[in-house]
């Protein structure tokens, strides 16, 4: 009763030589509902070149999702502000560049998407952990981080401006 003749995820089996009941994906197949033909969304490319635009409209929800996923999957190395001084870097991982250097500020969104999807240097790709839409949400949030580090008072709404000025006086 406790162990019925069925497999739980990742259980062991003698059925296959490698002992895995959960089978690796067969090359050339896709999951149900998986989109592979949208090169902009999935590959981050338009006409073979890194996309300079996002495949979806950027809303407050997208940015909130991007922030959440960024904090989970990226902040350990890139830190929450994107300066590349995360805790794991302090423990010996190679320091990634800050998102706020000019080269990365000028890089198209497709470039950031490409790094998440395929990895870069010491960074392994995150394609198995993040669906394309989540990767793009992170790209949008990285853009917001870049903007935040180079923002002026004129960029914020009047209400927020008043609050910031009040805080600055304290």
């Amino acid at each position: 009763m406790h162990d019925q003749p069925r497999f739980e995820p990742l259980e062991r089996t003698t059925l296959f030589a490698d002992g895995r009941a959960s089978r690796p994906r067969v090359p050339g197949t896709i999951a149900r509902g998986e989109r592979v033909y949208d090169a902009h969304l999935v590959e981050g490319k338009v006409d073979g070149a890194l996309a300079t635009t996002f495949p979806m409209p950027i809303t407050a929800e997208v940015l909130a999702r991007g922030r959440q996923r960024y904090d989970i999957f990226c902040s350990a190395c890139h830190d929450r502000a994107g300066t590349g001084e995360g805790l794991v870097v302090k423990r010996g991982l190679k320091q990634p560049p800050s998102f706020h250097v000019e080269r990365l500020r000028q890089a198209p969104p497709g470039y950031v998407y490409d790094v998440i999807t395929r990895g870069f240097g010491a960074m392994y790709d995150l394609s198995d952990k993040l669906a394309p839409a989540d990767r793009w949400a992170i790209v949008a949030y990285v853009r917001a981080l870049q903007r935040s580090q180079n923002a002026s008072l004129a960029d914020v709404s009047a209400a927020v401006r008043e609050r910031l000025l009040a805080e600055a006086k304290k």
Partner: protein
Amino acid sequence: MAQIFHPSFNTLSKVSIFGAVFFLGAAVFAWDSLLRSSYNTQVDVAREQPVPFSHKHHVQGLGLDCRFCHTSVEESAFAGIPPTKTCMGCHSLVWKDAPILEPVRESYRSDRPIEWTRVHDLPDFAYFDHSIHVAKGIGCTTCHGQVNEMPLMWRTETLNMDWCLACHRNPSANVRPRERVFDVDWDPASLTDEERAGLAAQYHLKSMLNCSTCHR
């Protein structure tokens, strides 16, 4: 004809009939205590693993989110055990020659998964889905304990049916805001009963006591 039973057997038979009640009671109590002991439930018993992975170091020390490794916990019944690639994301550079991590490197080289010892394993006749619990505002630490303080993993709860039912009878006792589900420092005492009732109403929590909720 001589008596078969000596007169003292009268006393003996009375004592043994009377005593049997206590003896049976004691035996039932002992059996129940054994079933509820950590010998049977594995509560508070740290489990050996092929690599002594420390949640304490990775969660408390580095601040990694649960979902960094347990990626499918929000969408699927199974929370997910990370592939060796997740380990190597850091350990190809950090502690890259440590003998203790050799099984990780060997797994990555040979593409054979590390065989972790499962700590929380429900019997196959009980259906459980992580994603719905997470979506309803039940936090990781409610069932798994302070994982961030565990050098090796152990159970803090029995996973017995009465434990499941205690919460299914009154789920609002354990609810927390959805955005704090993965917060290992969440303090259950930080909400008042009214606030908990409010969250329970907002998330449509209800008492789920039908047998087929879990045995389907």
